[in-house]
């Protein structure tokens, strides 16, 4: 009845403890990788946590000489403590970190790098450049541009759209700026932009108000799948579902399913995969166990999810 994997989690923890015990009497071939990520407080991070656990489980089977330490943190302070504990007590050889916030994590991670430990930074960059050995991230401007190009291609001059923005952050600004650039010159009117905070309820309220305010809306850029769900309900309530379509973003399984089924209200989606954590962990592991060069920057492009390719993005087991 309940979708959780605490038994699996416990088994994993036990495996880790056993793994560390083994690592005490190590020879030079054994490595420990620390993974520090934010805890699963919303859909996207839930998906990220899911993929992190999956990847660790898989890699521990593939490479018995690897041990993983996974820590999730609810705030930046706890994450700093986690990272320091990993270095002090678990003697890690590599650190994969998704900084909760850039500023507070910069100097602790720098300290880790200065001890000669391999550092992989995921998604949110640090405020000083050149600390990390490997940087893995989604493509925020690409995310906005991809959506913008779809709007420009599928709407004609004089059509009206509204935009829901996320929580005011640089990430949100990058996406929106790229979106605006992509629709420049297409003659599409952006009637309004308001913050829906990547939240279903807020997006529902904002969309209700947009619908009261404007009689003619042709499309909505919800910029996030959680917001797309709130927007969809508001449109259905107003009975205006024939009038407009929605483009969300990220790749929530419910939305992908609808795209796959050809829902006219959700023609496409733009990916921003939570599975990027898997890329980061895999590459880090690969760099430790083999001579494969993995340093540098790995930017995962945002892709347009259409009914034809949706299957590739559909993970029914993931919570997101």
């Amino acid at each position, binding site marked *: 009845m309940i979708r959780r994997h605490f038994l699996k989690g416990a088994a994993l923890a036990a495996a880790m403890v056993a793994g560390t015990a083994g690592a005490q009497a190590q020879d030079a071939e054994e490595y420990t990788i620390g993974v520090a990520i934010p805890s699963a407080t919303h859909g996207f991070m839930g998906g990220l946590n899911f993929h992190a656990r999956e990847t660790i489980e898989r890699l521990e089977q593939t490479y018995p000489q690897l041990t993983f330490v996974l820590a999730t943190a609810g705030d930046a302070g706890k994450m700093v403590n986690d990272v320091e504990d990993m270095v002090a007590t678990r003697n890690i050889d590599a650190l994969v970190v998704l900084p909760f916030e850039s500023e507070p994590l910069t100097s602790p991670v720098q300290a880790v790098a200065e001890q000669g430990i391999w550092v992989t930074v995921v998604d949110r960059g640090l405020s000083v450049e050149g600390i990390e050995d490997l940087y893995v991230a989604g493509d925020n401007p690409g995310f906005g541009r991809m959506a913008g190009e779809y709007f420009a291609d599928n709407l004609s001059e004089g059509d009206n759209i509204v935009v829901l923005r996320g929580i005011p952050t640089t990430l949100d600004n990058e996406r929106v700026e790229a979106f605006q650039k992509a629709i420049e010159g297409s003659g599409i009117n952006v009637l309004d932009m308001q913050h829906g905070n990547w939240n279903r309820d807020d997006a529902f309220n*904002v969309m209700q108000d947009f619908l009261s305010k404007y009689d003619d809306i042709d499309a909505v850029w919800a910029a996030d799948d959680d917001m797309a769900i709130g927007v969809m309900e508001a449109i259905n309530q107003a009975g205006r579902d024939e009038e407009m379509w929605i483009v969300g973003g990220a790749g929530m399984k*419910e939305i992908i399913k609808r795209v796959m089924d050809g829902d006219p209200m959700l023609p496409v989606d733009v990916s921003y995969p939570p599975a990027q954590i898997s890329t980061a962990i895999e590459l880090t592991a690969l760099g430790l166990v083999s001579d494969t060069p993995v340093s540098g920057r790995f930017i995962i492009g945002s892709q347009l999810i259409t009914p034809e390719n949706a299957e590739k993005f559909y993970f029914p087991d993931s919570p997101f």
Partner: protein
Amino acid sequence: MSDATSATEAPRHRKRLNFQVLGPLLALIVLVILGASLNSNFLSYGNVTNVLARSAFIGIIAVGMTFVITAGGIDLSVGSMAAFVAGVMILAMNSLIPTMGIGVPLIAVGMLVALATGFAAGWLNGFLISKVGIEAFIVTLGSMGIYRSLVTWLADGGTLSLDFDLRGLYRPVYYDGLLGVSWPIIVFAVVAILGELTLRHTAFGRHCAALGANEQVARYSAVKVDRARMATYTLLGALVGVATIMYVPRLGSASGSTGVLWELEAIAAVIIGGTVLKGGYGRVWGTVVGVLILSLIDNILNLASIVSPYLNGAIQGVIVILAVVLQRERKSAD
């Protein structure tokens, strides 16, 4: 200051009430005029229904919060509790589909589960506060964290969604109504009227005020202090259950981000409405006005878009403080 805490029944209070009445009502009227002048759709049937219906969740919770605050308490856990109750309700309904089938009885069971969960959660808060004697702030701060992480755990970090077909059947509870007035508005109105009557005209209501004004005096006046205090938290918990019953059919889902900061909105509404934060005096109808003021600000900012959306929070803050300042000034002028 001393008479504010002791003179709950003094005739002077009645006179002061007349002045205090104007503060929040005035603010509400100013907001309505402002909204109507900025956008012609503001007073349309659709917009008024939207605003009232979306106020209902916070509103129903805020009515219960009025009792808690009047009795000198505070509850920070209601937002997380609402998310947790919604999560439990959705899980219970989904898991009962194979045995009960999709139908009205299943929805009734779901509603009972929500009420019972809310009741139990509120009772537990009340028990820890009045019987074990821990500070309300600490108990509810703790339960806030507990319920928030429980719902995240239940949802495995993602979102709990109600079965699609069941949702279709349940949906009208939020979207339909009686004679053009949607159900959340009706339920909110009924809860508010019953709340006002209870607070003003029953022994329980007077006990709450007496308890909030001066616990010692209330105890010596044969008020069962512990029982009254526990009852306020239990009532609030049950009302969180009611609010959840109206909330779940709207989006049919619950996640770790459901009901974030609802507790602060509810507390703000209660204070804007003229209830005294340190207890001893409360009024439910004022709370209703407070809730409407909060949702109207949001609505007007969205409809008007005259300022940068970055500043929405600042404008909200200014109006909330102004609404309270208005009352305080009238009070001291009196």
